[in-house]
């Protein structure tokens, strides 16, 4: 089979532009609006209401405002690293989406190591966060960056354990094949329920959300690792974070909730229903739980989730082998 390389490059560029725009609009803009609306609803207030119909254009207005804001680089900062950090976070958030199958055939690339690739790209974020926190030369930012690094590496292991358990059940790392396997064997949220619980907890911690939002704990660290970032650079951090959160929700949909499969409605609709259900769950948690302390956070990961994850791998292996 011959491959038309220039055509493939053009297709890849188009795919990248589409996915990035999708993330900026559906992920970041709509995500922030949704978060504020749900927050308002849970706390018995209205949330954004004045820009556009029912406040629908609030985040669009915010983005336009941020585009006009001055970029302030502190004197003490390490300029080169300070400027690159938001880019790393945004790109890491984008790369996750290569292996997410939205519908049959609607996937950027069905990599044969899909799940491993996702885990690797998701953990790239920590590089950007740590770089940003360190380069700011600000005490709050440094503490936020360090906390984030320790938190993300601690929860990467339980996350990987949950992913491996799913890979064992399906016998493959390709995301499309995992969805197909669930069509045969039933949703993995049933057979792999412990893995699902571990995955959801670890994913919440990986994307630095409440109750694991220590890296950006407003009440103690101002804004954590992005305290010194203004205007659009701050927006890029936000974009990366929301892209990551939606990616985790999409991966949970793919691995545990049967992906695009579902009766009557078209596959794409099913995918988005399931993904938004998980996003809603994450936002619900944000407005419900208080923040953990750092030692509680690390204990939960190392002393509970990691041993539980490894034991669950053995149980799954035993069940399938014998």
């Amino acid at each position, binding site marked *: 089979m011959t491959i038309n390389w220039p055509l493939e490059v053009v297709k890849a560029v188009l795919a990248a532009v589409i996915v990035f725009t999708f993330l900026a609009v559906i992920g970041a803009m709509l995500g922030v609006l949704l978060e504020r609306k749900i927050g308002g609803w849970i706390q018995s207030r209205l949330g954004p209401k004045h820009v556009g119909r029912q406040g629908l254009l609030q985040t669009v207005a915010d983005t336009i405002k941020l585009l006009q804001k001055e970029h302030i680089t502190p004197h003490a900062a390490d300029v080169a690293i300070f400027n690159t950090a938001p880019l790393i976070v945004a790109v890491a958030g984008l790369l996750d989406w290569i292996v997410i199958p939205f519908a049959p055939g609607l996937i950027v690339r069905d990599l044969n190591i899909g799940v491993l690739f996702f885990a690797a790209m998701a953990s790239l974020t920590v590089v950007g966060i740590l770089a940003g926190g360190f380069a700011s030369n600000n005490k709050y930012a440094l503490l936020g960056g360090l906390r984030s690094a320790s938190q993300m590496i601690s929860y990467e292991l339980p996350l*990987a354990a949950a992913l491996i358990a799913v890979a064992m059940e399906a016998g493959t790392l390709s995301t499309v094949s995992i969805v197909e396997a669930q069509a045969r064997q039933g949703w993995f949220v049933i057979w792999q329920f412990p893995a699902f619980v571990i995955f959801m907890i670890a994913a919440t911690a990986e994307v630095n959300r409440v109750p694991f939002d220590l890296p950006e704990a407003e009440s103690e660290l101002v804004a954590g690792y992005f305290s010194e970032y203004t205007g659009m650079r701050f927006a890029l951090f936000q974009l990366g974070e929301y892209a990551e959160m939606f990616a985790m929700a999409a991966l949970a949909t793919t691995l545990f909730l049967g992906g695009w499969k579902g009766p009557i409605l078209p596959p794409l609709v099913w995918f988005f229903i399931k993904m938004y259900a998980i996003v809603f769950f994450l936002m619900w948690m944000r407005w419900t739980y208080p923040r953990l302390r750092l030692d509680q956070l690390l204990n939960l990961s190392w002393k509970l989730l990691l041993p539980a994850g490894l034991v669950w791998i053995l149980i799954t292996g035993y069940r399938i082998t014998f």
Partner: protein
Amino acid sequence: MLLLDWLYVGVFAVVGLAMAALPLAIVWALAPRFPYPQKRLTYESGVVPFGQAWAQFNVRYYLFSLVFVIFDVEVIYLYPWAIVFQALGKFAFVEMLIFLVILLVGLAYAWRKGALEWA
């Protein structure tokens, strides 16, 4: 096909960087620039910053990263096994059982020695 897959990954990384840099370019063209020394001071809750942030920090962070490296390498070994263990049968399972038990003993040791305590 494999090469094609990674072409997409590479293109995504490059285009992603460009798309992320685009708003920064717009800001560069649009936004005002009036830097003065007070504005470019590091933020420290309104007071003049005291010393640098690049100083010694808690050694605990380092300990956790060391333990992490050990277990992350272990996880890398688990991925290929998870794919093929059904074909390899009971022997592969018992082997992985031994490997994991050794690692769990290692985790218990680190736990006992207090490497997982934050205090």
